[in-house]
C-alpha cells in the first residue's frame, strides 16, 4: 500500500524504496505477514542505490560477512540465481535473516549512504533474493545445481536443538558431505523461529522450506528427543558421533520477582508465544492448545520478544495493549521496525514504568498491576542508563492478562547431564570464541546457550564457526 514510485534509476541519494505492507487496521486482525516483500521492480529500484564501495563497511557490519555489494550488483544485473549464491556462500538462512536481523545496527548501520541519506535497504533486498529462490528445488537452492555431495555415513555429527545455530551447522556440514543428525526436544523444528517469532513476522512456511532443503541434502531430523534426557552428550560420543554441537538456546524464562506473579492470566512471553505459535492457539478450538485472550493486556519488557507478545495479544482481540518498560523509548532494544509497526497498530507505550505488584481476585485471576514510575540515572556497566525509582509515584493499571518479557536464563538440562562441561557463573556454556569448542574435546556449543539471548544472525555466526572447525577436523 505504501509503495511510492520507484526511485529513478541512478538516483542514489533519494529515500529508500518502501516495502509494501498490510495496512495496520487490517493486519491487526490477522496473523498473516505484515511486510509483503519487494516486487522485482521495487527490488531493482532499491538495488541501484548501492554505491558498490571498494571496501564495503556494510560487509564488516554483517556477523557472517555476506558479500553485500556483490549480491546487490547481481540484482541490478537481473542475475537472481547469482545473487542467491553469493548470499548462500556465508548465510544458510537468508529468507529468515532478511526478515528478523536488526539491520539498523549491523549492515545498514554501516552503509556509507546512511551517513548523509538513508542507507540501502539491505535486509529487504536479502529477503527478496531468498524468497525468489525458495520456489526452486531444494538441492539446487542450496548448492546451485546437482553439486550435492554424497553424504558419508561414516562421518557423523550430532546437533542438539534445531534453532538457527544448529541449522547452520547442519547446512554447512551437509554441504561438505558430512552426515548430520539433529535432535530437537519439541515436536517442531526451527527453535525460536517457530515457537517464538510469530507468523505475522516470519511465516513458518519459510522456516519449513529452509529445513526441507537441508533434509534433501541428507540431514536427518529427530523431533521429541530431549538432549540430556532421551540421550546425553557422552552417549552420543559413545555412539560414534565424531562431534556434538549444542545449540539449545537460552530457554529459561525470567519472571519479575514481584508478588502475584502466579495469578491466572500471567504468562511468560515464552509460554504465551509458544501456545500461540507452536500450539497454534490463534485458531483455537480448531487447534487444541488454549490461550487466554486478554482484553486489557500489559506486557513488560522492551525487546523483540515484548513487541511480539504485544502484537500477538492485539491479534487475539485485545481492546488495549500497554507496554511497560523501565527505561525510555530510545533505550528499547527491539528492532526499530517492530516498534514502529507496533505503534501503528495501536500499542500504548508506558516507558519509565516498572511493576511493583500484581493484584487478583479470590479465585486467583489477575485483575491489575501497580506500576512504579522511574527516571533515568547514571549509565550502568552495560552503558545504558540505569532506571531509578521515583519514590511515591505509582499508578494502577487494570488488566486481565500480563506477559513478562524481561529476558531468559540458561537452561541447565544439558550441563546437568554432561559431567565436566564448563559453564560460566550464569550457567551459559563456555566455548572458544574462535572454534566454538567447549572444554570437552569434540563437543561444541553456540548461539544463545553460549552468549545469552542474542540474535538469529549471531547464533548463525557461532554455528558457522563451529561447523568450519568440525569440517576441518573431519575432512582434514
Amino acid at each position, binding site marked *: 500500500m505504501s509503495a511510492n514510485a520507484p526511485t529513478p534509476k541512478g538516483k542514489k541519494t533519494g529515500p529508500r524504496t518502501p516495502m509494501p505492507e498490510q495496512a495496520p487496521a487490517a493486519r491487526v486482525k490477522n496473523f498473516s505477514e505484515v511486510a509483503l516483500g519487494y516486487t522485482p521492480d521495487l527490488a531493482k529500484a532499491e538495488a541501484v542505490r548501492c554505491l558498490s564501495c571498494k571496501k564495503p563497511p556494510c560487509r564488516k557490519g554483517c556477523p557472517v560477512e555476506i558479500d553485500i555489494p556483490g549480491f546487490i550488483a547481481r540484482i541490478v544485473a537481473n542475475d537472481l540465481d547469482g545473487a542467491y549464491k553469493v548470499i548462500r556462500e556465508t548465510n544458510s538462512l537468508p529468507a529468515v535473516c532478511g526478515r528478523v536481523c536488526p539491520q539498523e545496527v549491523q549492515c545498514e548501520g554501516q552503509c556509507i549512504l546512511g551517513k548523509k541519506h538513508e542507507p540501502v535497504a539491505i535486509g529487504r533486498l536479502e529477503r527478496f533474493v531468498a524468497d525468489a529462490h525458495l520456489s526452486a528445488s531444494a538441492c539446487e537452492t542450496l548448492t546451485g545445481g546437482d553439486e550435492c555431495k554424497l553424504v558419508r555415513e561414516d562421518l557423523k555429527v550430532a546437533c542438539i536443538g534445531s534453532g538457527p545455530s544448529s541449522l547452520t551447522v547442519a547446512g554447512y556440514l551437509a554441504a561438505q558431505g558430512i552426515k548430520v543428525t539433529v535432535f530437537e*526436544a*519439541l*515436536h517442531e523444528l526451527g527453535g525460536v523461529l517457530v515457537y517464538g517469532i510469530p507468523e505475522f513476522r516470519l511465516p513458518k512456511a519459510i522456516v519449513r522450506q529452509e529445513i526441507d532443503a537441508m533434509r534433501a541434502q541428507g540431514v536427518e531430523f529427530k*523431533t*521429541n*528427543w*530431549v538432549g540430556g*534426557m*532421551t*540421550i546425553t552428550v557422552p552417549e552420543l560420543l559413545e555412539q560414534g558421533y565424531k562431534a556434538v554441537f549444542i545449540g539449545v538456546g537460552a*530457554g*529459561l*524464562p525470567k*519472571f519479575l520477582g514481584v508478588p502475584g*506473579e*502466579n495469578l*491466572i*492470566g500471567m*504468562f*511468560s512471553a*515464552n*509460554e504465551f508465544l*509458544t*501456545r500461540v505459535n507452536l*500450539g*497454534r492457539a490463534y*485458531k*483455537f*478450538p*480448531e*487447534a*487444541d*492448545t*488454549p*490461550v*487466554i485472550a486478554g482484553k486489557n493486556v500489559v506486557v513488560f519488557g522492551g525487546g523483540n520478544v515484548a513487541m511480539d507478545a504485544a502484537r500477538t495479544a492485539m491479534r487475539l482481540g485485545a481492546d488495549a495493549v500497554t507496554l511497560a518498560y523501565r527505561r525510555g523509548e530510545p533505550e528499547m532494544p527491539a528492532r526499530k521496525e517492530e516498534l514502529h509497526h507496533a505503534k501503528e497498530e495501536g500499542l500504548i507505550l508506558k516507558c519509565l514504568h516498572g511493576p511493583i505488584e500484581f493484584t487478583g481476585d479470590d*479465585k*486467583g485471576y489477575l485483575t491489575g498491576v501497580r506500576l512504579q514510575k522511574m527516571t533515568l540515572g547514571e549509565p550502568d556497566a552495560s552503558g545504558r542508563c540505569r532506571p531509578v525509582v521515583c519514590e511515591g509515584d505509582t499508578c494502577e493499571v487494570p488488566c486481565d492478562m500480563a506477559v513478562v518479557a524481561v529476558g531468559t536464563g540458561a*537452561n*541447565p*538440562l544439558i550441563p546437568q547431564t554432561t559431567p565436566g562441561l564448563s559453564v560460566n557463573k550464569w550457567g551459559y556454556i563456555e566455548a572458544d570464541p574462535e572454534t566454538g569448542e567447549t572444554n570437552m574435546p569434540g563437543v561444541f556449543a553456540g548461539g544463545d546457550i553460549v552468549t545469552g539471548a542474542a540474535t538469529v544472525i549471531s547464533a548463525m555466526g557461532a554455528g558457522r564457526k563451529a561447523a568450519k572447525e568440525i569440517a576441518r577436523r573431519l575432512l582434514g
Partner: protein
Amino acid sequence: MANTILRKRSLIPGTTSELVVDAPHIAAKARPGNFVILRVCPDGERIPLTIADADPTAGTITIVYLVLGKTTAHLETLGEGDGILDLCGPLGRATDIHKLPGEVICVGGGTGIAAMHHIAKGHHKAGNYVVGVIGARSRELLLFYDELKAICPEVLVSTNDGSFGRQGLVTELLQERLKNSPLVSEVVGVGPVPMMEAVAKVTKPFGVKTTVSLNSIMVDGIGMCGACRVSVGGKTKFACVDGPEFDGQLVDYRELSQRLGAFKPQEQRSYEEFKKSHVCKCTHS
C-alpha cells in the same frame, strides 16, 4: 515401530485405560517419577502423562490415563497397532530412591495410583519395605491392586462405599499406619490435589519426610515456558524440571488448584466440539 500402541487394557471402562507403547529410547532411560509429553494429532495439545512402568528389555513404557477432556478422549479412540503422533521423554527429575532404614508408605488415589506404582516399584527394587495405601470411591474404580500386591508386602485399601477394604479415606489408613509403625522413613503421595494436601496434613505431626508429585499444567516440559510453575516454600519452581516431586509440606496447594483451572472454559469448549465431531467419525466407519 516407535510410538506404536502394543497393548491396550481398559481399567475402568470408558474412563481409564492403560497403554503399553513401543518406545525403546524412552524405556531405556525411564526412572520412577519421570513422565512423557505426548500429542495425539496435528494441531493437538501437548499433555503430560506419568510413566507408570517401563521395560527396557522389551523397549516399552506403560501409561495410564483418565479420560478428562479432548486430548485424553482422543487418545482413548486409539487402539492396538495405532501410533501416538508425538511422544517425548523421559521428562522430569526421577524420584530420589535409595535404601532406607524404615518403611516407605506409598499413597495413591485415582489415576495417581498408576503413577505411584512406578515409584513403589523403584523403592521395592532398592530393597525398601513398601506399604501401598490406595483408595477409590468403590471397588470397580480401584486401579493397580494386583500390580502393587506383587511388589508391596502390604497393600492397604479403602473405598468410600466400603465395597472393598476399609470404608473411608486413604488418609485415615495412613494416619493409623503412622501411629502404629515403629519406623516410617518416607511417605509418598500421588493423586488429586486435595488428596495430596490431606496426606501432607496427616504426616505433618509425625515429622516424616513427605513427597508429593504435582500435576500442574505443562507446555514444553523442558523448562522453557514456566506454565508449570508452582510455589514451594514461597519460591517459584518449575514442576517439569525442578519436580514434579516436591516436599509435601511446602507446596501451595491452593495456588496449584486454582492454576489447574486456568483454561476451564476453553477446555470445555474443545471437548464439546470433539464429542460432536467424533460421533460423526464413528458413524462413517
